[in-house]
């Protein structure tokens, strides 16, 4: 049986434990509140596991170093917040285009710009999807508990490896600094996904570091191994060589989106809370889940059939699960700590005339169950 240990720690600490459990052995980053505990934990823990922590000169170089280390065979990660995440966009795009796995933990805080630096928000959700120039798609998870910080970190690395792409972990100040009970179960090797390697009989002549024919990425050997490996942020052919012809541009563009959007069922995780017989539903994610759960409890106590759909995966959007809710209930409330970013996406799927109500809080304080309930009354 797997080893398991109970702890009472911050979300940011659980992330470090989860990353190491997932096999991460390289961290490159630049400190920023409210994510710095992840850096500090990584600096302390990684060498104990033979891994390397390096603080780079900024977030741009951090992101670049993550990709380099990953190409050298190490699972890599970083942590940041809004300003740093903005700086990472160009090289995040490089990771997407070169198909190099890595995991970025964005501990969201109140923006834009420096904003109210230490206060929570959930307003980088759309940036997570669209911050990179050019057509692409992306995988992003969002934890709502310290347990999630541990468990989903492992999931994040698995998805990064499986889909050969940077994965975003969009947590927030509330969850990052929340201390709570967590059970850290050491994952079984079977629960860890390591990037697919080329078959042992594949020759250099046959080897293709890229493949656009299926919606799954090509095998990815580390540099320094038996096969020469070639990656680039330019439009490339299967060999990873520069290929700026129209047909090639077109297939790369489609492939990068398809490998995520066409695997949406494999990628997306959602959770239902009291949703079965619900007449009023909440759709939410991250720290807002905490307040929403309590709101549901309060409503249930009053006899109102309320339920909640939690988006654990926020990108690709769990369209099916959202549609299932929209088509079933009359009113959906979307609590979030921004001005309605998720609500906008939910509306895209609302072919059912469901009433979609926003419950937003944007003053740097965790949204309360009462505020959520108030929005429902107002309807």
């Amino acid at each position, binding site marked *: 049986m797997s080893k398991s240990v109970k702890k009472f720690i911050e979300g940011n600490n659980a992330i470090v434990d989860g990353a190491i459990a997932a096999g991460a052995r390289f961290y490159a980053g630049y400190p920023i509140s409210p994510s710095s505990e992840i850096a500090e934990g990584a600096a302390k823990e990684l060498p104990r596991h033979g891994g390397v922590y390096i603080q780079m000169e900024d977030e741009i170089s951090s992101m670049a170093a993550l990709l380099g280390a990953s190409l050298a065979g190490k699972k890599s990660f970083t942590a940041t917040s809004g300003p740093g995440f903005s700086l990472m966009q160009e090289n995040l795009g490089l990771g997407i285009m070169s198909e190099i796995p890595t995991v970025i933990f964005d501990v969201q805080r109140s923006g834009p710009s420096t904003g109210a630096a230490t206060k929570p928000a959930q307003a980088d959700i759309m940036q997570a999807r669209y911050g990179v120039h050019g057509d692409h798609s992306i995988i992003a998870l969002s934890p709502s508990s310290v347990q999630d910080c541990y468990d989903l970190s492992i999931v994040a690395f698995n998805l990064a490896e499986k889909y050969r792409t940077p994965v975003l972990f969009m947590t927030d100040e509330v969850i990052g600094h929340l201390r709570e009970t967590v059970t850290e179960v050491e994952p079984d090797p079977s629960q860890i996904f390591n990037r697919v390697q080329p078959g042992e009989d594949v020759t250099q002549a046959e080897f293709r570091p890229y493949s656009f024919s299926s919606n799954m990425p090509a095998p990815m050997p580390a540099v*320094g191994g038996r096969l*020469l490996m070639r990656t680039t942020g330019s439009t490339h052919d299967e060999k990873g060589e*520069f290929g700026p012809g129209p047909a090639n541009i077109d297939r790369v563009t489609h492939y990068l989106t398809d490998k995520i959007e066409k695997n949406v069922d494999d990628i997306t995780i959602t959770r239902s809370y009291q949703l079965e017989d619900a007449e009023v539903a909440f759709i939410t994610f991250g720290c807002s889940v905490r307040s929403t759960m309590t709101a549901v409890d309060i409503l249930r106590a009053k006899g109102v059939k309320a339920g909640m759909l939690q988006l654990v995966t926020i990108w690709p959007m769990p369209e099916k699960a959202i549609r299932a809710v929209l088509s079933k209930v009359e009113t959906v409330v979307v609590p979030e700590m921004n001005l309605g970013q998720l609500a906008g996406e939910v509306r895209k799927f609302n072919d059912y005339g469901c009433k979609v109500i926003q419950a937003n809080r944007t003053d740097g304080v965790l949204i309360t169950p009462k505020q959520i309930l108030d929005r429902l009354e107002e309807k």
Partner: protein
Amino acid sequence: MATYKDYMLFDKLPHTWCAGCGDGIILQSIAAVFAEMELDKHDITLVSGIGCFGRVDDYLDINCMHVTHGRALAAATGVALGNPELNVLVTMGDGDGTTIGGNHLIHCARRNIDLTAIIANNYNYGQTGGQYSGTTPTDSITSTSPYGHIEQNFDICKLAEAAGASYVARSTAYNPVQMRKLIRGGMEHKGFALIEVMVACPTHYGRYNRQGEAADMMKLMNEQSVPVEKARTMTEEELEGRIVTGLLVDKDREDYYTKYKKIIDAQNMDK
């Protein structure tokens, strides 16, 4: 015995660089040094940035990582620490390596990451049409300094030295023999090594500044060259406008990973 061709995708030639462009001269030198050192090509990883010279990877048959403009050294830091056994080579233009990428250069030098960086200094942004860069000499004409450039240019090697680089050298495309020696020295050096190579961009810099054909530009750089040994006897004024070539810095200093490994080992002593 291996030749440079063994490290190249020779079939992809002719390359896309302009006639007379110095980048091809460095490419040949790099591959020749690999051959000289009889390296196993699987152990070499090239990280290159964006720019004309950044495209050397198109012609090399080794591991290649072509990244974004200016970030090659940062990515290479990850490669070098991700697998300290690798021979990591980084190729950049002057824009790539010292203008947009200047911060990575000085920090990488300071940290003494074990890699070899080659900067092809052609005094301008070749790839985007000949705009001025951080190394464009004062008074030059470029596509964005039509009235003469008013900035002072970097002395890349001096900067790297001030930042703490443990191996710094400069050569020119005119002098491939010296270039090879210095590149090889950099690859054999344990720690951060920087080799600046002066090359001609006849298409833009040469044309804007009426420096003639590529060969004329190379003659000019040769005339401007002063071996470092001689330069040490010259005054600052005498050195004005000269290119000091040779091995400028060569220090023994423990590289980043060697030091980090000691922490790893100390933390795992009782395991």
